[in-house]
């Protein structure tokens, strides 16, 4: 059966889609927003924490290195102050001092030397053959003449090994003398090289020329590479700076820098961002996985849930459809009973006439006086009357049959005006007996409806016969049936001048089994069947009633194109 009441799966598909979409939107938007908020909050906080940790570490080391350099300079100054040029020029004494220093600091001090104003080493204590070495051209020598105490950058010098010199100057002009100490590169290097975090975290020191002051397992960077870091010098309140930039391999890295040694050196801690934030990234990956998993669960749930619900709805609709069908069938039976009673009276009248006419002919025959012309004429008249009354019966049964025709509920193009005509053919006589004046105002050229003829008959029979019954009780009235086309819909109005329906029961008149008739005289199904049929057709039925004035039922039916359901 192809009915347009939603049994087709398409509307259910649409419903399911709408439900899935709603569930997804309603659940995803808050989850997404919360996740985003948490992500950014967590991301920022964690980053800050990592950076703070690195800054703190670099600050500590910077202080440590500065303290180390200051302490070595102080050591050298202390020696010079304590013993003076004469004593220190004695190489044995000088060796004794070196041994004392090495006892205290291990191998930090490599050698000691006293240099005169011309740059010649006067005395020397240490492992190299540097007696009488000439430092007059060395950069540090020129510096120390100008500055009193100098800590040099790391250089190879005369010995060809990386080292740096702490030198301090005493005396004036030709009396000028310099105490010079070489600091072991290795022991200094340890201060920095033990800073290792993660897999890529390394620390190193560069001078302003970009030369490494510690061993660093990275290729020599361009001289300008660290120039930018020095520029941060401008803001002395912030001693440690954090930069994020690509390293020499193009890997995004975090650089934490602090200036050392009167801003001449730069302590650089460098770690690839991916390594530094590896915990963060792992947490992000984890939450992304949870988010995706949750999303998939949600998706599956939305899909399964809405499928299940729509299946239920479809099932409920099917059951409702079946139920209303059964009610309609039950109502049809009840309607047939009512119709039969109405029609019986109409048929009984002509039948009574026929029986009496036949009886009359028998009367005449029993007299044996059929020979007279008057009697023959009388017999002919009686026979003609029987024929006429027979025709009347035939007309009535023909009308009845128009209702039985197509007792299936298939939809066909249907002219509402014709249906109303059929109904009055059947109920016209009853209206007459009920002293009801019938007026029909049928709009011409109404579009055809797509509906079941039987069902439309049922609706109109119910409405008209209800009106007739209501007015019959009142001793007559006026019944107006009109059709019209309004807003592309066919509007049928059945108005009576009956007693009207009390307001108290007006909302219940379409309820199944609701009736005001005595027990056994009404099923209470008539109007509920009308309601069911009309709703199945996608239409509506409205009622307006005033006690003492009458009742008006308005049936509004959508016009459907014939080909829509014509594919029977």
């Amino acid at each position: 059966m192809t009915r347009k009441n939603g049994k087709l799966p398409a509307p259910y598909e649409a419903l399911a889609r709408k439900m899935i979409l709603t569930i997804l939107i309603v659940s995803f938007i808050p989850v997404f927003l919360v996740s985003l908020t948490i992500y950014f909050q967590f991301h920022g906080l964690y980053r800050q924490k990592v950076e703070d940790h690195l800054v703190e570490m670099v600050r500590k080391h910077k202080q440590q290195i500065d303290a180390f350099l200051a302490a070595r300079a102080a050591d050298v100054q202390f020696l010079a102050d304590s013993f003076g040029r004469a004593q220190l020029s004695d190489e044995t004494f000088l060796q004794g001092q070196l041994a004392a220093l090495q006892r205290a600091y291990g191998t930090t001090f490599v050698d000691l030397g006293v240099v005169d104003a011309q740059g010649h080493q006067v005395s020397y204590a240490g492992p190299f053959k540097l007696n009488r070495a000439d430092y007059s051209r060395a950069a540090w020598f020129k510096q120390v003449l100008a500055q009193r105490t100098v800590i040099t950058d790391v250089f190879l010098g005369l010995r060809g090994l990386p080292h740096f010199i702490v030198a301090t100057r005493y005396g004036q002009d030709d009396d000028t003398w310099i105490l010079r100490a070489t600091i072991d590169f290795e022991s200094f290097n340890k201060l920095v090289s033990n800073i290792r975090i993660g897999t890529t975290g390394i620390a190193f020191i560069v001078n302003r020329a970009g030369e490494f002051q510690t061993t660093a397992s990275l290729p020599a960077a361009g001289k300008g590479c660290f120039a930018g870091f020095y520029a941060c010098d401008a803001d002395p309140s912030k001693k440690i700076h954090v930069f994020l930039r690509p390293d020499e391999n193009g890997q995004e890295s975090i650089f934490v820098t602090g200036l050392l040694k009167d801003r001449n050196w730069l302590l650089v801690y460098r770690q690839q961002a991916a390594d530094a934030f590896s915990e963060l990234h792992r947490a992000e990956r984890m939450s992304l996985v949870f988010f995706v998993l949750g999303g998939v669960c949600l998706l599956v749930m939305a899909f399964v849930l809405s499928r299940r619900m729509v299946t239920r709805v479809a099932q409920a609709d099917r059951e409702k459809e079946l139920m209303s069908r059964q009610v309609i069938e039950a109502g049809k039976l009840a309607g047939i009973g009512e119709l039969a009673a109405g029609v019986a009276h109409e048929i009984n009248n002509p039948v009574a006439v026929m029986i009496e006419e036949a009886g009359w002919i028998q009367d005449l025959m029993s007299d044996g006086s059929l020979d007279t012309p008057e009697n023959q004429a009388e017999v002919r008249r009686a026979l003609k009357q029987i024929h006429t009354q027979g025709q009347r019966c035939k007309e009535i049964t023909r009308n009845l049959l128009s209702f039985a025709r197509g007792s299936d509920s298939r939809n066909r193009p249907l002219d509402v005006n014709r249906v109303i005509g059929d109904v009055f053919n059947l109920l016209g006589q009853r209206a007459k007996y009920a002293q009801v004046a019938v007026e029909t105002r049928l709009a011409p050229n109404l579009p055809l409806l797509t509906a079941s003829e039987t069902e439309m008959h049922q609706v109109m029979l119910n409405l008209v016969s209800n009106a007739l019954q209501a007015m019959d009780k009142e001793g007559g009235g006026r019944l107006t049936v009109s059709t019209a086309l309004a807003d592309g819909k066919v509007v049928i109005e059945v108005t009576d001048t009956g007693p009207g329906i009390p307001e108290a029961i007006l909302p219940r008149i379409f309820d199944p089994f609701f009736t005001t008739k005595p027990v056994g005289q009404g099923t209470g199904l008539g109007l509920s069947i009308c309601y069911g049929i009309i709703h199945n057709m996608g239409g509506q039925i409205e009622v307006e009633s005033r006690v003492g004035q009458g009742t008006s039922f308005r049936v509004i039916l959508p016009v459907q194109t014939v080909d829509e359901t014509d594919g029977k």
Partner: protein
Amino acid sequence: MPSSKPSEPFIRLLLIDDETVFVEVLAKRLSRRGIEVEKAYSGGQGIQLLRKQDFDVALLDLKMVDMDGMEVLRVLKLVAPDLPVILISGHGADDAARQGQAAGAFDFLAKPCDLDLLIEKIHAAVGRGGGG
């Protein structure tokens, strides 16, 4: 005094029915059986006839176009309270008979009715109403 024998032609019957042909043919048949029939084709006409003359019995159709048979019965009973009224109707409804009898009808017959049965009822009505 009219006796209740079928051969005696003194029963005056008022037949009220809007089915003209039925009235005509029934009147003819009843006349042959000694019942004088006054024909009324509507409730109003029947009431007028009853006002003008006396009847022994009335035969009244319940369903008529101008007036409801029940209403006619009430008026008939007002005009001639002793007149036995037999109701006839194509509507074989039991409650119509019950209602009619409550309103003072003598009996009820469903249309089409057996003529012999009708005559029997008429005699019974006359015997009770007129012979009392």
